[in-house]
């Protein structure tokens, strides 16, 4: 399942809500791998005050669905969840949640890593950060 949120993202609550909504999976998965990306207050040595996340609404959902579908086909997963924040953000705000559920950990880790890498490469989101020196659009960054 994928979702784009203009509201603050509570990734740990998202997971609980998602699991509660899928009782048919309870007892089936043995491995849950999760990645959460969080806004840092420092980027390349410069203090970051705030950030705006722009996206291409008509494309974002489709692209995230495509990325998830691909992971579900490639690995033996029970489920995958991707939630991405857009709009204005503050340091320490969670930006993205990727969670996958599978029987064993090999598939869970590989799929979770693949999902966030694909998302960062292909999903149409752009970060603009504000520092004391003004605003700047980010370049694709460190892994």
């Amino acid at each position, binding site marked *: 399942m994928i979702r784009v949120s203009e509201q603050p993202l509570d990734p740990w609550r998202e997971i609980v809500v998602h699991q509660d909504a899928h009782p048919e999976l309870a007892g089936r998965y043995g491995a849950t791998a999760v990645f959460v*990306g969080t806004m840092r207050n420092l980027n390349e040595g410069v203090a970051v005050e705030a950030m705006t*996340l*722009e*996206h*291409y609404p*008509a*494309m974002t959902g*489709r*692209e995230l669905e495509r990325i998830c579908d691909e992971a579900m086909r490639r690995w033996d997963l029970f489920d995958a969840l991707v939630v*991405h924040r857009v709009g204005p953000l503050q340091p320490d705000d969670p*930006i*993205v949640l990727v969670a996958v559920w599978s029987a064993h950990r090999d598939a869970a880790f590989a799929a979770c890593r693949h999902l*966030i890498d694909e*998302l*960062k*490469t*292909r*999903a*149409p*989101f*752009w*970060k*603009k950060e504000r520092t004391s020196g003004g605003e700047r*659009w*980010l*370049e*694709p*960054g460190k892994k």
Partner: protein
Amino acid sequence: MSITVRYFASVRESLGRGEDRIAAAGVATVADVWRRAAATPLPPRLLAAINQQHAGLDATVHDGDEVAFFPPVTGG
């Protein structure tokens, strides 16, 4: 009909607008759309989508398509 052209992030800010609409006549590729609509040289590392799917600058554009231009993505 026509082609809807959309710009995002730094591309949108550079052009000073988020959207254009151009006639489809004489437009064959994504690069053609950029030259017609933006009327500036192709920026380095420009990415594009046709109808909300990633597309190369040499991809074929059809009447009625939505073509989008944007810089490398930085989500996640």
